[in-house]
């Protein structure tokens, strides 16, 4: 181990760096954490919009490494750049917001998965659909399994509300944040 006594770099210097990086188009992915009633969320956005949301159970380091590989390694932590996203999520958890307005970057979804996820995004607050409904909306009624993975590997849960998709028999199916979270979200939305 080195016995370094290097002082940490000031917040101001790091902020100036982020500002200049963004101004020069060098901030491809900005990320920040956000508190929620379920634990800490990790939000990541590109200049186009929110691209990824990590639920409390997800491995943050793995998620960022994955974004570095799939989008760009120019990944920087930048809390201020995600203020709007954090505000909308706070309002959602407080029951004050029923639809998100923040811009979404869909680049991690293509083809059937993209259509299915856009279908999920259109499910109104407080309502649910089945995986079969979703497959139909995405253009292939028989692709129920693929509709399932449009949900299970949804890059932006909550904002693309895959918790509103259930099995045809009414049972919960799965959820990246755990079934208890899915259940509580549905109850919160029904109660509002």
């Amino acid at each position, binding site marked *: 181990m080195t016995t370094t006594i290097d002082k940490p770099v000031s917040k101001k*210097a*790091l902020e100036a760096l982020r500002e200049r990086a963004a101004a020069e188009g*060098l901030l491809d992915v900005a990320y920040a954490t956000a508190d929620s009633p379920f634990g800490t969320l990790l939000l990541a956005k590109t200049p186009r919009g929110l691209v990824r949301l990590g639920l409390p159970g997800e491995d943050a380091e793995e998620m960022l*490494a994955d974004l*570095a*590989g799939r989008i760009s390694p120019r990944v920087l932590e930048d809390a201020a750049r995600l203020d709007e996203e954090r505000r909308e999520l706070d309002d959602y958890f407080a029951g004050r917001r029923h639809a998100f307005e923040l811009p979404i970057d869909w680049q991690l979804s293509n083809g059937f998965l993209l259509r299915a996820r856009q279908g999920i995004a259109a499910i109104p607050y407080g309502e649910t659909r089945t995986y079969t409904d979703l497959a139909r909306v995405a253009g292939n009624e028989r692709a129920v399994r693929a509709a399932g993975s449009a949900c299970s590997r949804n890059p932006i849960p909550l904002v693309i509300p895959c918790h509103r998709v259930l099995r045809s028999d009414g049972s919960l199916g799965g959820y990246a944040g755990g079934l208890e979270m899915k259940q509580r979200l549905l109850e919160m939305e029904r109660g509002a």
Partner: protein
Amino acid sequence: MADLPPFQTLIDEHAAEVMGVLRGAVGREGAEDAFQETFLAALRAYPSLRDTRNLRGWLVTIAHRKAIDHHRARGRAPVPIAEVREEAFTDPDPADGAIWGAVAALPPKQRAAVTLRFASDLPHEEIAAALGCSPAAARRSLHEGLKRLRKELA
């Protein structure tokens, strides 16, 4: 393609050291600017970086280039250096902070000479060019700086 870690990890792991190197090389006032320049240059080049084995050395190399730019911009070096080394060097492990702290406290010319010699590994002629003085004067600054460091750190 090399698996590049998210750039933030480079900042988390190496920003403090890069800032330390720059304080030593250009002084406290110039260091913040040089720090921005260093990390912006790194960020610009990062996606096409092939060799990820020594990210620290890569950053420190860029920092030294920016320190030289800084000295040149301040008019100390009208003579361009023939060639700046491009390869990342593995700099020695100077029982870090204590030594750099003492280096930072040196008068500007001595500080620059010591840093360019030992951190950037430049020969006397190039140090002279960077500082805009004769090789003999560069040698003298280096000598004086080292003498003072020995005293400080003894």
